[in-house]
């Protein structure tokens, strides 16, 4: 019986194709919006949590140059104000586990016939520890190699792929700014950063090597940034204050001078970022839910019209033996079918939009099975909830009154 009624509900919707589609529009838009928002929200959150995972926990980053962006300020990282001994002093502050000075030079890297423009980071062995970045193949350089300015390099995955493809880079030689470097290790994949930049598109060399050979003369002793690993999250704020105090003193800044460096607490930033994105996607999903409810009211409206139009049909059905329960079921099924069909189309549209949006923004937007099941569950509830009243009205008709209409 239920199969027959489903078939009849279907043919009732088909008989009024245009109206059915227009009625479903509210559901389609609502479901598509919810699916899209959950997908984008999920994508952003995945991105953020991956970035956090790749950052190393309890990390402070000290960057050369003013943190303030006044009209004349060159912005963070622009000045040659940080020096290697700053890192040594920071390493002695309480609760600091390690401080890794590093510098960054863009360079054209050559391996055999292949050319690749990338970043060369010069740093110390602690850099890998602080950034919680482990070597995948081969090894990183030692303290001794760092001090000696050994001509060795560790490659990020992207660089390894671009320069060597399928062949093994270990032991090969690459050239950067006219300097030959021997590849001793390849790092694990780290994925994208916040801005969507590829964090595997980098070469790490000993800091001394970078300063001596790769960096321009004027900045020989100066470094770009210092990554500081702090013992616990609770100590982050205190260490941040201590670093500021220490650097202002050693840089001999007057009380009226601005800092010539900036300290970024990335853990705090990522925390805020992830709560914010979660809140935003929740808000957008809530807006989508409102349009779902509006869609449900649209279904109720059309079902009421349909019950009125089909009063005679209801009368005929009752006259040949349809019980009130059967009549109610018939109209409930129609409402349910409208909402579920709308939901199905909405899921398809939402998934399509999520894929397009993913391409556009440049990160994964995953439509989860969870989101789809939620969409269907909510749509079914809406169909039953908003279909109930019209269906009950149909069921309450008296057979003879309905037949006379």
């Amino acid at each position, binding site marked *: *019986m239920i199969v027959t009624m489903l078939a009849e509900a279907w043919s009732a919707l088909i008989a009024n194709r245009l109206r059915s589609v227009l009625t479903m529009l509210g559901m389609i838009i609502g479901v598509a919006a919810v699916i899209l928002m959950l997908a984008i929200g999920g994508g952003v959150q995945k991105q953020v949590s991956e970035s956090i995972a790749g950052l190393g926990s309890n990390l402070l980053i000290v960057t050369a140059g003013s943190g303030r962006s006044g009209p004349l300020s060159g912005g963070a990282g622009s000045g040659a104000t940080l020096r290697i001994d700053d890192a040594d002093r920071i390493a002695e502050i309480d609760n600091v586990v390690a401080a890794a000075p590093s510098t960054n030079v863009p360079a054209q890297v050559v391996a055999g016939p292949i050319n690749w423009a990338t970043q060369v980071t010069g740093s110390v062995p602690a850099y890998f520890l602080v950034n919680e970045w482990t070597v995948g193949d081969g090894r990183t350089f030692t303290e001794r190699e760092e001090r000696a300015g050994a001509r060795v390099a560790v490659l990020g995955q992207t660089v390894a792929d671009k320069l060597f493809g399928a062949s093994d880079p270990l032991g090969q030689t690459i050239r950067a700014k006219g300097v030959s470097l021997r590849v001793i290790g390849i790092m694990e994949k780290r994925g994208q950063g916040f801005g969507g930049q590829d964090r595997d598109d980098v070469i790490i060399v000993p800091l001394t090597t970078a300063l001596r050979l790769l960096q321009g003369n004027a900045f020989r002793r100066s470094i770009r940034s210092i990554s500081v690993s702090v013992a616990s999250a609770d100590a982050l704020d205190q260490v941040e204050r201590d670093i500021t105090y220490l650097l202002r003193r050693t840089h001999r800044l007057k009380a009226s001078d601005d800092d010539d460096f900036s300290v970024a607490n990335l853990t705090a930033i990522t925390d805020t970022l992830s709560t914010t994105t979660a809140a935003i996607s929740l808000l957008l999903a809530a807006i989508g839910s409102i349009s779902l409810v509006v869609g449900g009211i649209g279904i109720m409206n059309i079902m009421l019209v349909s019950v009125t139009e089909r009063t005679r049909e209801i009368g005929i*059905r009752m*006259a040949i*033996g349809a*019980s*009130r329960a059967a009549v109610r079921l018939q109209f409930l099924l129609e409402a349910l079918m409208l909402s579920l069909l709308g939901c199905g189309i909405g899921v398809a549209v939402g998934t399509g939009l999520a894929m397009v949006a993913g391409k556009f923004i440049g990160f994964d937007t995953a439509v989860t099975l969870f989101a789809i099941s939620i969409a269907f569950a909510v749509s079914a509830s809406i169909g039953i909830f908003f279909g109930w009243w019209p269906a009950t009205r149909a069921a309450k008709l008296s057979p*003879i009154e309905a*037949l006379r209409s």
Partner: protein
Amino acid sequence: MTALLALDNVIKDYQSEAGTFRALDGVSLVVEKGELVSIMGPSGSGKSTLMNIIGCLDTPTAGIYRFDGTDTATLSETALARLRNAGIGFVFQQFNLLPRLSALANVALPMVYSGVAKRDRDMRAQTLLASVGIGDKPKSRPSQLSGGQQQRVAVARSLANSPELLLADEPTGALDTKTGIEVLALFRSLNEQQGVTVVIVTHDPEVARATNRVVRIQDGRVFYDGPPTEAALYGHAEGATA
């Protein structure tokens, strides 16, 4: 043996802006199982009103209507629906087929509500269509059928659940004489061969003549109830037995 139908002083009032209108004014009528009865009377005399009450589509304002010994006023909505579904077959003056369904689906519909499996009800519906002479058009929509063919579909539908009682409100009114006689012959054979009790409302004396008993109604009252005499058929009996 209890009578199939027993109406005792049934009254039906209609309320309208103009006031109360008494369409049935104390109708008492007993029909035994296996009878073939025709109901006659001028337009507006209350024949359809009576049929609707007998068919459990409507309820009397006052009086008692017993179906197979049970007072219908005591029956639940569900029991009434079951009675309309399987106990009584109703053929309406305006056919009342569902326009979106095929002839076959229309005939099968009462069996949907009585829970017959799809295969079985389609088979039976096809048999019924064949028995009313339109077995070749199961897929046609009502709008693609002639009036007579639609009426046959309606008759086939009324027989779907093998009812004990067949009610037909002017079943031949919309048909030409020849088709009318064919439909009537169908009712007769159902009555004679399967013992189905049949009540037919008709204006046509020739139709009434083929039944065993004529009930004449005027102004909501029975004023003739007896064999199909010429006087009863042509209305000259007015007042004779009132």
